[in-house]
């Protein structure tokens, strides 16, 4: 770095530094509204730009709805009336940007964070919140690693991939009646993690993993591995990966005459998949964490409230809403919005949210989570079965 020898430059730099410091110190003061209400700031992080912006905005609206309702209801913490304010940040679904905005929220001393949307963004950001002692509840990250980094500040209201993998593996053996299961994954953190859990669950349920094959998240030709799989005569082919691979894979299974059903996770359970797979989608069952909105305990009511304000629900808004309420409930239990104080109360929170029973286990995974399995009927995903997954770490 160049050192300024010019005294004028030095003076200007010092002045700028002073202003910056002044700006910072102003933020650390506890802000109050004109009515003397204490302001509690909740960070809401999701991709608000780029291809996943619609999902990000959806999460953000879920947080806002919960905060507005709490304000309308009137929440008092330790005798002091409070007002919730939502601070929205855009992490662009990018792990690097996620850490930058996380640091920004920490510097702004928010009282808690709801986010991030993606596992890839939530995992690196979790460390930054942990170091600052700020609780983070993700409404949609499913990667197992998110809650396994040893951070007591990390929670989620969405069932994780281990819970999903267990349900999928059992479903393949018990409901689809396949004693022989072939497993393919795309070698990404998501695909591999999910496939490993499915493999374990298949064996636990008395099935046999007859083939374990791999591809990449950019491949479109699977004829070679499917030919190898065909020779092992499985009843079900499970794929841990996303829809752009799953669609041609299903088509190639048909053209190779593989007489097996196809099972996928939430990366496959997309509207995009239906479009790409066409008629080959008939052999597909795919899962998605959570419940279809109409099966949620408070689903109908939530949809009416939400739709009137923000338009149709995309996906995870109910989970963001429940996550925000879990945070507010912990603050009420502690009688304080101080992260250090209400963090201890978060694991004790238990209530019936929109998406079901909300409570956290020792790792911060949601305890009452559900997994729903879908078929394609008339060009739409139709729920066929919902399985309550139980705790992500403990019993089934």
């Amino acid at each position, binding site marked *: 770095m160049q050192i300024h020898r010019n005294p004028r430059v030095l003076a200007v730099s010092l002045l700028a530094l002073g202003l910056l410091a002044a700006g910072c110190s102003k933020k650390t003061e506890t802000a109050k509204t004109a009515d003397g209400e204490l302001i509690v700031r909740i960070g809401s992080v999701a991709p608000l730009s780029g291809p996943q912006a619609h999902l990000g905005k959806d999460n953000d609206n879920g947080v806002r709805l919960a905060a507005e309702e709490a304000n309308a209801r009137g929440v008092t913490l330790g005798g002091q009336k409070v007002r919730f304010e939502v601070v929205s940040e855009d992490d662009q679904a990018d792990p690097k940007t996620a850490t930058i905005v996380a640091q920004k929220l920490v510097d702004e001393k928010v009282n808690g964070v709801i986010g991030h949307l993606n596992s890839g963004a939530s995992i690196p950001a979790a460390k930054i919140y942990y170091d600052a002692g700020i609780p983070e509840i993700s409404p949609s990250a499913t990667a197992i690693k998110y809650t396994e980094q040893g951070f007591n500040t990390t929670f989620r209201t969405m069932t994780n991939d281990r819970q999903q993998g267990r349900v999928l593996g059992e479903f393949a053996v018990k409901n689809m009646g396949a004693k022989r299961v072939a497993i393919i994954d795309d070698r990404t953190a998501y695909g591999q993690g999910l496939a490993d859990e499915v493999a374990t669950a298949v064996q636990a349920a008395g099935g046999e993993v007859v083939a374990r094959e791999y591809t990449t998240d950019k491949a479109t030709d699977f004829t070679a591995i499917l030919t190898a799989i065909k020779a092992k005569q499985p009843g079900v082919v499970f794929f841990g990966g996303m*829809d752009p691979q799953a669609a041609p894979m299903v088509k190639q299974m048909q*053209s190779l005459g593989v007489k097996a059903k196809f099972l996928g996770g939430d990366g496959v359970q997309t509207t995009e998949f239906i479009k790409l797979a066409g008629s080959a989608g008939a052999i597909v069952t795919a899962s998605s964490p959570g419940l279809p909105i109409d099966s949620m305990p408070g689903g109908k009511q939530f949809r009416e409230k939400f739709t009137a304000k923000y338009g149709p629900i995309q996906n995870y808004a109910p989970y963001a809403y429940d996550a925000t309420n879990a945070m507010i409930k912990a603050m009420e239990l502690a009688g304080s919005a101080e992260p250090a104080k209400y963090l201890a109360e978060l694991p004790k929170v238990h209530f019936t949210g929109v998406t079901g029973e909300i409570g956290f286990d020792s790792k911060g995974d949601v305890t009452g989570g559900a997994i729903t399995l879908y078929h394609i009927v008339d060009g739409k995903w139709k729920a066929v079965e919902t399985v309550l997954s139980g705790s992500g770490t403990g019993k089934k």
Partner: protein
Amino acid sequence: MDILLQQLINGLVLGSIYALIALGYTMVYGILELINFAHGEVTMIGAMVCIAILHALLPGSGLPVVLILALGVGGAVLVCMLLGLGIERVAYRPLRRAPRLTALITAIGVSIVLQNVAMLVWGKQYVSFPGVLDIHRYEFGGASITNLQIAIVALALLIMLALLVIVYRTRLGRAMRATAQSPDLAALMGVNPDVIIALTFAIGAALAAVAGVMVAIYYGLAHYYMGFLLGLKAFSAAVLGGIGNLGGAMLGGLLLGIVESLGAGYIGPLTGGFLGSNYQDVFAFFVLILVLVFRPSGLLGERVGERA
């Protein structure tokens, strides 16, 4: 045995598509000694244009499906030929006397531009190829093959044959071969090298367009980034066969397809499960390296002196 047969069929289909694209690389290299890295993107544009035409015409135009499909392929070929001509005119012709590295970097630049244009036009999403074809499956000897696979291989072989006829039996082909040997001398004999080079690009682009459509039909989808990996594989196929040699590109393409297929199918059992099918590409490129160690100019390539 039936598995081996099936893997050979899988490889043959994949290989004939590689071969079509590889021909484009090898033709341009044969004449200009330029590796046209934008060629993979031309393949992608071909696929995208065909899908766009199909989506525009299919609902409610009332035309028979075969005609619409023909229009789609024809449109893709036309657009790609114009694109090939345009790329040559704008990006390569001004640099023909420049150091070869300049043209190479320009080629990479063109490839990035095309990718981003496609992303802007067709979006970042995968686009699906409409399901217009009735796929029938035939079983024989424990293996199965679809009418689509047969059509792809047959059409690819037909096009390759036609290309050989053009290059070795027509005036245009003779002019192309003459330009490849020496553009200046060919010019003295009344051949216009600029025209011949432009036509070479156009023919290569037409082959790429057909290959792109084949990929889109076969896998049922296309994506703005699909040209990169396809181009890389086809380029490797051209090098494997001996770049600059037409027969070499065909042989290299077919071989690469089959090696990939066999590699993915047998690498697991062969290594006792130590290496899985995720090493499919490693296996293919290992074969490529092995060939180049013992035959640096490729399988059918001839050792030629560096041309200044």
